């Protein structure tokens, strides 16, 4: 789960990480008031769950409250990579001498938390990692030990930080690590960490991602999830407990198991079709869930055909068939549905679907061919 910069900074402040003075504004007037209260040069920053906001014009400097108001009115409502900016963070602009990068994340291959420090901050760190990896100092942490002082010294020195910054950076890193562990983060990043002309370190930007699997014990943070930023159908699907990703095609895809559904998307695309979504009903789905999954896929008005791909292990084919029949009885569905049912209780499932207008297929390949053909014909019939 992603949280906003200002929310990440609120967490860091609790761990005594120095952050710029500032506040959050939802209107240009509020932005002006915050700038007035700070009484100095401010930066107005779009709060949106996507990278690259600076390049998109979502970050502006302002010397006066009037300028802050003007900047906020430009940024609020702005569309950044498909997301609408609803809030801006207004905070004091730092007097920048040097910019560094600090980050902690999970190294999947090493199965350790990894801490990264670079003297090249304020830029895209993935770019640095790709082009000049030697500019990033890395330390993997043993979970039985955590972060010790010596780790921070190694990092600061190997990254080549300004000698004046080495001691404060150590405290910074330890605080960042405590916050990272306490909130079950999968990423905690300060980029840039600014060394001011006065010799202080301050976190002028912050990013924290929370592990979705840990939200059951991070209940306060779970409340920060913002549904209005998600696609409305995705939000609806998540409320129903479905794993749904919206795509831009016209063939609705449902199946059981992430790998199988992903492969179904690939096979449909290979046959010349364009998937409208990814939907995994999960293992052991009951009829009710299958029905609600089909209803969700059909909320997308681009959908001109549906492909069900079920390989029953713990999922029973007759349950899936019942769910589909329930949905078709309750709704007026006027797009073709192709269904491939294999595995546990497949005969019972297939029998239930006999005599209905649902189109059976013996394999994933055949199902993909059928739905692609039906959808392309439907298109031609509408636009001769």
């Amino acid at each position, binding site marked *: 789960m992603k949280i906003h910069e200002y929310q990440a900074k609120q967490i860091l402040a609790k761990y005594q990480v120095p952050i710029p003075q500032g506040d959050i504004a939802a209107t240009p007037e509020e932005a002006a008031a915050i700038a007035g209260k700070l009484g100095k040069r401010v930066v107005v920053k779009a709060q949106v769950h996507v990278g690259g906001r600076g390049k998109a014009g979502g970050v502006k400097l302002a010397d006066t409250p009037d300028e802050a108001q003007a900047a906020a009115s430009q940024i609020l409502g702005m569309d950044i990579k498909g997301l609408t900016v609803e809030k801006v963070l207004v905070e004091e602009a730092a007097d920048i001498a040097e910019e560094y990068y600090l980050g902690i994340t*999970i190294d*999947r*291959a090493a*199965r*350790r*938390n990894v801490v990264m420090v670079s003297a090249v901050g304020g830029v895209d760190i*993935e770019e640095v990692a790709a082009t000049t990896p030697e500019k990033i100092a890395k330390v993997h942490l*043993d*979970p*039985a030990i955590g972060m010790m002082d010596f780790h921070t010294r190694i990092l600061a020195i190997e990254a080549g930080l300004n000698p004046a910054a080495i001691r404060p950076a150590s405290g910074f890193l330890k605080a960042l690590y405590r916050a990272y*562990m306490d909130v*079950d983060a*999968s990423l905690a990043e300060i980029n840039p960490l600014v060394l001011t002309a006065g010799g202080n370190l301050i976190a002028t930007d912050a990013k924290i991602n929370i*592990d*979705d*699997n*840990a939200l*059951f*014990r991070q209940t306060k943070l779970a409340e920060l999830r913002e549904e209005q930023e998600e696609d409305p159908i995705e939000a609806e699907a998540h409320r129903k407990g479905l*794993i749904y*990703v919206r*795509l831009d095609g016209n063939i609705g895809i449902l*199946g*059981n*198991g*992430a*790998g*199988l*559904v*992903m*492969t179904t*998307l*690939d*096979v449909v*695309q*290979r046959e010349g079709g364009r*998937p409208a979504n*990814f939907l*995994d009903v999960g*293992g*052991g789905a009951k009829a009710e869930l299958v029905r609600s999954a089909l209803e969700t896929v059909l909320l997308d008005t681009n959908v001109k055909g549906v492909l069900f791909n079920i*390989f*029953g*292990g*713990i999922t029973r084919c007759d349950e899936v068939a019942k769910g589909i029949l329930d949905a078709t009885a309750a709704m007026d569905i006027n797009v073709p549905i192709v269904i491939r049912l*294999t*595995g*546990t209780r497949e005969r019972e499932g297939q029998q239930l679907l006999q005599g209905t207008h649902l189109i059976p297929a013996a*394999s*994933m*390949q055949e199902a993909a061919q059928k739905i692609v053909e039906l959808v392309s014909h439907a298109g031609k019939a509408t636009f001769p």
Partner: protein
Amino acid sequence: MSIYVNNSTRLLVQGVTGREGEFHTRQMIEYGTNVVAGVTPGKGGQVIEHLGARVPVFNTVKEAVTEAQANCTVIFVPPPFGCDAVLEALDAGVTGIVCITEGIPTQDMLRVHRFLMEAQGWMIGPNCPGVISPGKCKAGILPGNIFMPGNVGLVSRSGTLTYEIVNELTQAGLGQSTCVGIGGDPIIGSSFVDVLRRFEGDPETAAVVLIGEIGGNDEEVAAEFIRDKMTKPVVSFIAGKTAPPGKRMGHAGAIVSGSSGTAQGKIEALDAVGVAVANLPNEVPTLVKRVLQ
């Protein structure tokens, strides 16, 4: 002796009285697995009977080891208790662990993995379908009827996609030595390389099928291992060729971030070390037959 599980496996089921745990305990017994004990804290003293088998339920793993000599465990407990369940098993000396539970926090898994290494144990999962050596032992939720004994090893990050491909193999007359679903989480007990290393040393395995998907770089690391350490032929299929970047495709680990974790990158890495990569799942049997010749 097949890898991970075989005829001498004495299986314990943690979370044995839960809905999934009990259902799959019966399924495993039906497959012929020697299920010797179950654990559910507070339910000690109960017995699960099925097809003449009597599975005693204990309150702790320690008791299950002392009383029933369990040497391998399959875990069905809810995610908040997953870390505790694995560590309890390791503490009691059970060094073979199959963790089915989906949704265990990543930081918990980092701790688990640390102690797994210290205990010199192996772990499959979490968030996985388990492991099966057809005709010998099934530890997990895989549908037993689609498997057939043979000499093809299979390792996969996905559950139902594994079934799809196993079904194709079996229908083509290609039996399996062991099939391992390593799970779709970012941090897992056994990576592709861990399993490949065992297949390479397993006299019952002649060729290996590796089923990967987008996200992480486990397939790329596997490619290096195949180039440097493997003599047995490997066939592969990678899911998610058309998945858009930044979208998590179901599995927590299945996400393309920036230019890393793409299916294309994985296919190229495998292809470069001589792995035959199938375009479609149903091409896998043909490729396996070719490399076995």
